[in-house]
C-alpha cells in the first residue's frame, strides 16, 4: 500500500514507540500535521518552538526515552536552536522534525526557507535533509538510532514539503538503520580494566567523581557497589545529582564552583580520582594546572573524545560505564587505609556547618536556601524538580537532597535560562505520577513563561516556585564579587506573578515570610492542578562557597559568618 511521506513519518514514530510529541504547526509542515490525526500520538501544542525542544529534552531526561519536537521551516526551525544546543551539551536524546520548503525551491531564498541542517550541524549528533518520500522512513529510523546510541544527543530531520506529500511503498526491513560498526570499535591505546583495578586497590585516598553518565548508562547500582566494596567516597557533578542517593553515607555531595567546600578539598587531597561518566568541565575543575595534583586518574566515558581532553589521565577507558564498572567489581577490595581517609574528609567539613545558612538563627528574612530546604522537607525529598539557571539552581542543588535517579533535571552544560518550565512540562508528560516542581528565577521565568498556557491547555499538575529576588541574581553576584558592585543591567522587574498565573487560570500565592512557606507549599501540593508560588526572597544574597572562574579549586569564597549581622539591618 502506498503512503504519503507524511504518513510514513508518523508510522516511523509509532514504530519507534513514540506516544507524545511537542510541536507547533506552519506551512511547510502542514502535510505532516494533517496526517497526524490518523495516528495514536498525543501532540502538545507549545507556545514557542524553543519550548518544544526543552519539553522533548525534559521528557527524555525524565524517562530515558527519546523526546520528539516538531516545527515548521524558517522561524519555526530557528526557534529550536537553543533547545537543540542545550540537549547537545547535556547528552539528551531528542529528535527534531522540521518542515522544509519544496525541494525545487531549496537554495532560492523561498518564503520561510532557512538552511537548518547547516545551522544545526555543529549542535546535533547528526542531521538529515529529506527530499523524497522514499527517504523518510530510513532517515527517521536512523535518527532515533543515532540519538540514543553511544553518547546520546539531538538529531534533526528536515523534510521538504513535497517529500511529505509524495507517496511511495515502504519496505520497513530495508529501512532499518545500518550504522557503521566502526562507531563502537575499540581503538588501540584503550585503557585496561586491570590497570584501573590495580590503581583502585592501591590507593589510600581514592575518590569517585560521578556524572550524568551514571544515569545515561543506568549504572546507579554499580557505582554504589563500587563505593561500598572499596569504601570509596563519591563526589557528584551537577548533572550527577540523584545518580547516587544524597542520603548514602559515602556520598559527599556536589563538587565544583558551588560545590561543598569539603568536597573540593577532598578532590585536591585525593591520591586517586575515579571519574565516571563526567567530563572535567571547567565549572568542576577550576584552574587545571593546580587541579588534583596529588591524584592518579582513571576516566571512563563512552565518548572517547572526552578522554584526555581537559585533564590528562593515567587510565582512559572508552566504554559504557555500567559494563566497565561491572568488570571491576569482583576485584575491588577495601584496604585498611580507607577509614583514615574517610575520617580526614569528615574533618574537612570543619566550620562548614556553622557557616551553613540553614543553621543560622532566623532573622525574619526569607532566604532562597530556606525555601528550597522547606520544599525538600515538605515533598519528602521525592519530587521531580526541574530547575532553571542561576542562583536558585545552585541553591536547589545544595539544599534539595535528591535520593532518586533522574529526579533533578537542569540545564548544566549550556546553562540555558528559560529551560525549567518547558522541560518540566516534558517531564510531567513522561512521568505523570511524579510530583513535579519547577524551581525558577524571576529572570529565567520571564523568558518562557508563555508555556503556562501549555500547562493549562494540557491540564498538567505542575507546581512552580519562583525564587524572586528582583535581580538576575547570579550575574549580580559576579558583579558584587568581581565588578565592584556595579549592577549593570541586573536589577529586573517583573509582573505580579500571582496575578499573572491567575490570568492563565493557575492557582497562585505570594510568600514573603518563612512562616508562610509551609502553608503555600502544602496548598499547592493538595491541589490536583497547576499552582504557582512567588517566593519574594532576600534580594542580595549570594551562593557560597564559590570558586571564582579559573581559580584554584580549593580557594573558595566562603559565606561571611555569621550572616545575620550583614543581612539583618
Amino acid at each position, binding site marked *: 500500500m502506498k503512503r504519503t511521506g507524511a504518513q510514513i513519518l508518523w508510522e516511523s514514530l509509532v514504530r519507534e514507540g513514540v506516544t507524545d510529541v511537542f510541536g507547533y504547526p506552519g506551512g511547510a509542515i502542514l502535510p505532516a500535521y494533517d496526517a497526524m490525526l490518523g495516528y495514536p500520538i498525543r501532540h502538545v501544542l507549545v507556545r514557542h518552538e524553543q519550548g518544544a525542544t526543552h519539553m522533548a529534552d525534559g521528557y527524555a531526561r525524565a524517562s530515558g526515552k527519546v523526546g520528539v519536537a516538531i516545527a515548521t521551516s524558517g522561524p519555526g526551525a530557528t526557534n529550536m536552536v537553543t533547545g537543540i544546543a542545550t540537549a547537545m551539551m547535556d547528552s539528551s536524546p531528542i529528535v527534531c522534525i522540521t518542515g522544509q520548503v519544496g525541494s525545487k525551491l*531549496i537554495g532560492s531564498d523561498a518564503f520561510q526557507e532557512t*538552511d537548518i*541542517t*547547516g545551522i544545526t*550541524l*555543529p549542535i546535533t*549528533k*547528526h*542531521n*538529515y*535533509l*529529506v*527530499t523524497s518520500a522514499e*527517504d523518510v522512513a*530510513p*532517515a527517521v529510523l*536512523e535518527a532515533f538510532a*543515532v540519538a540514543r546510541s*553511544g553518547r546520546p544527543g539531538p538529531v534533526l530531520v*528536515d523534510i521538504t514539503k513535497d517529500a511529505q506529500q509524495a507517496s511511495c511503498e515502504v519496505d520497513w526491513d*530495508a529501512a532499518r538503520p*545500518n*550504522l*557503521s560498526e*566502526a*562507531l563502537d*570499535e575499540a*581503538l588501540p*591505546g584503550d585503557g585496561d580494566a586491570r590497570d584501573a583495578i590495580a590503581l583502585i586497590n592501591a590507593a589510600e585516598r581514592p575518590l569517585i567523581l560521578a556524572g550524568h553518565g551514571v544515569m545515561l548508562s543506568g549504572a546507579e547500582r554499580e557505582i554504589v557497589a563500587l563505593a561500598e566494596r572499596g569504601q570509596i567516597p563519591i563526589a557528584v557533578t551537577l548533572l550527577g545529582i540523584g545518580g547516587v542517593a544524597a542520603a548514602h553515607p559515602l556520598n559527599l555531595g556536589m563538587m565544583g564552583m558551588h560545590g561543598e567546600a569539603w568536597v573540593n578539598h577532598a578532590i585536591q587531597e585525593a591520591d586517586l580520582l575515579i571519574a565516571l561518566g563526567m567530563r572535567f568541565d571547567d565549572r568542576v575543575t577550576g584552574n587545571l594546572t593546580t587541579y588534583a595534583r596529588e591524584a592518579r586518574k582513571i576516566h571512563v566515558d563512552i*565518548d*572517547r*573524545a572526552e*578522554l*584526555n*581532553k581537559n585533564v*590528562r589521565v593515567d587510565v582512559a577507558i*572508552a566504554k559504557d560505564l555500567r559494563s566497565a564498572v561491572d568488570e571491576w567489581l569482583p576485584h575491588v577490595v577495601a584496604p585498611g587505609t580507607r577509614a583514615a581517609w574517610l575520617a580526614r574528609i569528615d574533618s574537612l567539613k570543619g566550620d562548614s556547618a556553622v557557616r551553613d545558612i540553614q543553621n543560622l538563627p532566623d532573622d525574619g528574612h526569607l532566604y532562597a536556601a530556606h525555601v528550597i530546604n522547606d520544599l525538600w522537607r515538605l515533598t519528602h525529598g521525592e519530587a521531580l524538580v526541574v530547575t532553571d539557571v542561576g542562583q536558585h539552581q545552585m541553591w536547589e542543588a545544595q539544599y534539595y537532597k535528591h535520593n532518586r535517579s533522574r529526579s533533578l533535571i537542569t540545564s548544566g552544560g549550556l546553562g540555558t535560562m528559560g529551560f525549567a518550565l518547558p522541560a518540566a512540562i516534558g517531564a510531567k508528560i513522561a512521568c505523570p505520577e511524579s510530583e513535579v516542581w519547577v524551581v525558577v528565577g524571576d529572570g529565567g521565568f520571564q523568558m518562557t513563561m508563555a508555556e503556562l498556557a501549555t500547562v493549562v491547555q494540557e491540564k498538567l499538575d505542575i507546581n512552580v516556585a519562583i525564587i524572586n529576588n528582583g535581580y538576575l541574581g547570579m550575574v549580580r553576584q559576579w558583579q558584587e564579587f568581581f565588578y565592584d558592585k556595579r549592577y549593570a543591567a541586573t536589577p529586573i522587574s517583573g509582573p505580579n506573578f500571582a496575578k499573572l498565573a491567575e490570568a492563565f487560570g493557575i492557582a497562585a500565592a505570594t510568600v514573603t515570610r518563612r512562616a508562610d512557606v509551609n502553608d503555600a507549599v502544602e496548598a499547592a501540593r493538595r491541589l490536583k492542578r497547576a499552582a504557582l508560588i512567588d517566593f519574594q526572597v532576600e534580594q542580595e544574597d549570594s551562593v557560597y562557597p564559590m570558586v571564582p572562574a579559573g581559580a584554584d579549586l580549593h580557594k573558595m569564597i566562603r559565606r561571611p559568618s555569621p550572616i545575620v549581622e550583614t543581612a539583618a539591618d
Partner: protein
Amino acid sequence: MLHTFAVYVDNKPGVLNRVSSLFRRRAFNIESLTVGHTETPGVSRMTVVVDTDEYGARRLEAHLYKLVPCRRVDNITAAASIARDLALIKVAATGEARTHVMQLVDVYRARIVDVSPESLVIETTGTEDKIDSLLEVLRPYGVVEMVRTGRVAMARGASSARRSVAPPSRPAPVAAESGGDVSHGSV
C-alpha cells in the same frame, strides 16, 4: 607536529562540510585536505594533514568516528607510508632561460605539459619537500601561476587492510547539503 589521517567516508552530499566543520568547530587547523574515490564504490577517502599533538590527534580521531558518514579513520603519521603532492607550475621563460628551465625539469624528473611562446607549464609529483625545492629553483625565472593538490598518502605494505570498508548497503538518506559532492571537493 603534523599528523596525517586517512579518513573513509560515505560519498554523499555534505560530507566534506561535516568533516571540515568538525575541524573548525574543534579549533584544529587543516594544513591540507584532499578527497577522491576509493576502490570501494560509494566510499571516498580523504587525506587530512593537521598540526596537533598526540592527544589532539587521538581526540580528532575519536571525533571523526562520531560523524555518522565516517567509516574508518587511520592515523598514518607513524606508519611507513608514501606521501605525494602534485603541482602544476607555470613559468615565464623565453630564450636562454627556457633552456635552463628545461634542464631543471629534467633534473627533478618533472614534465613539461604545455608550451607557449611566453611560458611553460610544468607538472611534478613527489613529496612536498621535492616540490618546494623545485619551486625554489624555478622562482628566479618567474613563476606566474601555481596550483598544488595537497598531500595524498597511503601506508606501505598490507597494513592499510587492517579493517576493510564495506560499500554502503542501501542508498542512505541524503545528508544535509551544504558542502557539495565530496568526490570532487578539496579544501
